């Protein structure tokens, strides 16, 4: 798994690539924690996880998202998932995580 963090005016973007599974969920969780910290310190309320380069995420990654969401909720930061591929769309539906997270086609949020 690779990731990068980008600060934009109104959002923190976490771009994730590769796979989030049993070997990489801890690094993914750490990346999310770092992003939430940056969002908190910058007064940013929008944290976007760009899944455009992500092959898939197992339940470890999904549960790391849950841990991050709990941390984000405390700071009134909203996490949304952007640009999932077809595999991720299926996984999000099968896990019912599409009911827990806002999912958008692109990283821009149409307001």
């Amino acid at each position, binding site marked *: 798994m690779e990731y990068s963090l980008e600060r934009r005016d109104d959002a923190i973007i976490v771009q994730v690539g590769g796979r989030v599974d049993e070997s990489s*969920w801890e690094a993914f969780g750490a990346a999310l924690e770092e992003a939430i910290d940056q969002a908190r310190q910058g007064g940013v309320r929008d944290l976007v996880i760009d899944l455009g380069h992500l092959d898939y995420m*197992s*339940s*470890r990654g999904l549960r790391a998202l*849950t841990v991050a969401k709990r941390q984000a909720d405390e700071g009134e930061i909203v996490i949304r998932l952007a640009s999932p591929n077809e595999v991720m769309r299926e*996984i999000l539906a099968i*896990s*019912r*995580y599409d*009911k827990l997270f806002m999912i958008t086609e692109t990283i821009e949020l149409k307001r």
Partner: protein
Amino acid sequence: MLVRFWGTRGSLPVAPTADTIRQKIVHALLVANGTSFADAAEAEAFIDNELGFAAGATYGGATPCVELEAGSGSYFICDMGSGLRSFGLSSMKRNAEGHRKTYNFFLSHLHWDHIMGFPFFAPAFDPMATIRVHAAHPDAEDALRRQQEEISFPVPFDWLRADIQFVQLTPGEAYEIDGVQVETARQQHSHVSYGYRFTDRDGRTVIYSTDSEHKPDNMEDEAAFITFFREADLVICDTMYSLAESVTMKEDWGHSSNLVAIDLCHEAQAKCLALFHHEPTYADEDIQRMHEESIRYEELTRNGPPLEVICAYDGLEVRL
């Protein structure tokens, strides 16, 4: 080894209503669309080929009870849910044909749905039967006696005539019980639950891991489960909730999800996963959908040998 499922539902026994059965018949007749069948075999072939499992059968509604025919001459049974009643009657027929009347029970935990079948276990009244209740809980006997106190049940525990023994097991230790290697491991559940690993003389391994919650905050603890499940021929796992439910409204309810079970089995290189402890409010169609989604998730996330994903139902037999 043969694994026979006598009860696969969690929490509460359920039964289909008259309307549920009627709707299945209506659907089958519509699919048949006037087809005539020469005999029962043709009708059964139609059910197998043209109707899904939910439409042509049922997953059942008895609470957990799983029998292992491990070739040891005695009975091996996981849990005493309401499915135990049917197992008890079946065993009496086998006893009449010469089967040894020794029952080795292994309790995952002492909640009502996992012990409720024991007051209806007919062999317990047989003075020639030996019943060994293996449990890591020190209070297993208390739990069984309590549910047969007069306020709850008209037949006291002390009226049972079988030789009933309680054997406490220690997690992490290996036992040989009537030719079967048995280990137990602690799981997260209210009042604690325990999983079991059974290995017969041919090296076939079955894992029974029900009522075990895998919380998002404790994922680093899952390494122990991967070791416990390692290369098992069959893993029977609690897959009661969707992943989203298990981390939100059903968090701390002590159960798990299909996705976590599949991931653990992938990492453990297990060969087959049986989805188990079905939510009592699920209709057969809901369970079938969960099964289909589980098969798809396994395909999407497979990174090694395929894991066969089956869905346990009352009456299922799996030969390893």
